[in-house]
């Protein structure tokens, strides 16, 4: 296996085009991760595979860039007082168990229906989870923007926080007390999703907001702690199998460390519900992208018959939509940062004029 990975890594020809593509996607992925706590991985793995990198090396190299990126992002946002370290560690502990459950489910599906069955399961999970959770996140962001500027505590979270079921845990930065038993399912689902679609944050962040009751800002920042701990564990596993291509990892990391810090700075400029808007938008577009990949796997399982050229066209559109999701996220983040910065400059000029008068 190690020899295979080595051969594959040597096989990849790194041209300037490839390097630029990985650097730019790394930067945009980092920007989105620094802002919403996750994202980028769903484009990087298929992106590397489209350059000819074998799937295992692509997953390993992506994971090896993910944990230091999350570490730098978490450190930056910790300095802004947005990270609840205890919440991140508690969630990561149960997410680790969730990952193991997710791997077992994947292995079972792979054994029963083969690779096409496994891909179909992953795509259907993508579509179901992202449409359901993404639509709700988007709706909530729209609703809370209309009602008030502040981020209200959701009803479900308030109800769960009022139930005294020992052991109760107090999360200081998030400023909430809740039973450990209510954090476990959120962590398990985060890990399960991370093992299935490689982006656990799409359940982790909404879970921390709507079930545990942390604010969007705290949840997205604490998600980076979860991503760091889980990413480090995953990297050790992949590196021990000799699957990490350090060249790919360093190129992506060079872009993503610039992006993740810009995304973290961005959270201090915008209103809290902007995190929900960006997350909801990305989730819905990615769900559509994965829905386009479903017919290909159904055809491979002989459940439908379809034209090969139509399938490859849908596959191409699916990948383009994923890139679009990331690009839209980046445009919303940068746009709202520029808008907030302009407003700040105008305010400063007005106050200076007032002082002079």
């Amino acid at each position: 296996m190690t020899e295979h990975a080595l051969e594959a890594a040597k096989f990849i020809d790194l041209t300037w085009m490839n390097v630029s593509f990985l650097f730019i996607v790394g930067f945009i992925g980092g920007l989105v991760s620094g802002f919403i706590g996750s994202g980028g991985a769903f484009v990087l793995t298929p992106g590397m595979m489209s350059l000819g990198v074998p799937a295992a090396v692509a997953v390993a190299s992506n994971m090896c860039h993910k944990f230091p990126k999350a570490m730098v992002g978490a450190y930056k946002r910790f300095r802004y007082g947005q990270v609840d370290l205890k919440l991140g560690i508690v969630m990561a502990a149960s997410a680790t168990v969730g990952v193991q459950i997710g791997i077992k489910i994947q292995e079972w599906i792979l054994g029963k229906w083969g690779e096409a069955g496994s891909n179909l399961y992953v795509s259907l999970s993508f579509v179901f989870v992202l449409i359901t959770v993404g639509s709700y996140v988007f709706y909530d962001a729209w609703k809370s923007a209309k009602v008030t500027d502040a981020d209200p505590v959701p009803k479900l979270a308030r109800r769960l926080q009022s139930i005294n079921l020992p052991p109760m845990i107090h999360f200081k930065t998030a400023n909430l007390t809740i039973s450990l038993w209510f954090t476990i399912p959120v962590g398990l689902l985060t890990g399960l999703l991370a093992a299935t679609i490689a982006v656990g944050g799409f359940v982790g962040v909404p879970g921390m907001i709507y079930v545990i009751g942390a604010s969007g800002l705290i949840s997205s920042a604490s998600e980076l702690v979860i991503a760091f701990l889980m990413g480090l564990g995953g990297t050790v596993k992949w590196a021990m199998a000799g699957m990490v291509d350090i060249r790919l990892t360093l190129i992506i990391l060079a872009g993503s460390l610039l992006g993740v810090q810009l995304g973290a700075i961005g959270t201090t400029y915008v209103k809290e519900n902007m995190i929900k808007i960006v997350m909801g938008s990305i989730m819905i577009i990615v769900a559509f992208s994965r829905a386009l990949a479903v017919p290909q796997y159904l055809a491979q399982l002989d459940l439908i018959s379809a034209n090969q050229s139509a399938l490859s066209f849908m596959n191409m559109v699916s990948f383009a939509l994923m890139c679009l999701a990331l690009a839209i996220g980046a445009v919303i983040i940068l746009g709202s940062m520029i808008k907030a910065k302009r407003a700040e400059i105008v305010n400063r000029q007005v106050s200076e004029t007032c002082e002079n008068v």
Partner: protein
Amino acid sequence: MSVTTEINKPKAILRTVMYGAVSAAMLVAVFSHTDAITSLFSLGGIYAALPIATVFAFSFAHGAFASNLWSALGIEATTKKTAPRPAESVPRPAQRPRARLRMSA
């Protein structure tokens, strides 16, 4: 409402150049010995420590470079006063208090 954190621009520029040089040197070191490094780092087992240590070291240098670069460009975090989180709006009672008639003699 928001106060921009003060930055020392010349210091940030100096640090950007310094950490940028370290980060570039690391990239040059890896890419000028690609074959040897790729073969060594993909041996697996105990050699797993090599890629992990490399990304930690690179994150430190490149992370510091990136942070100082944004500061040198004037892109810095603003410290906002976070508003207390309100509970979700409670519907108003349907009944209004009844008007009372007061007689003053």
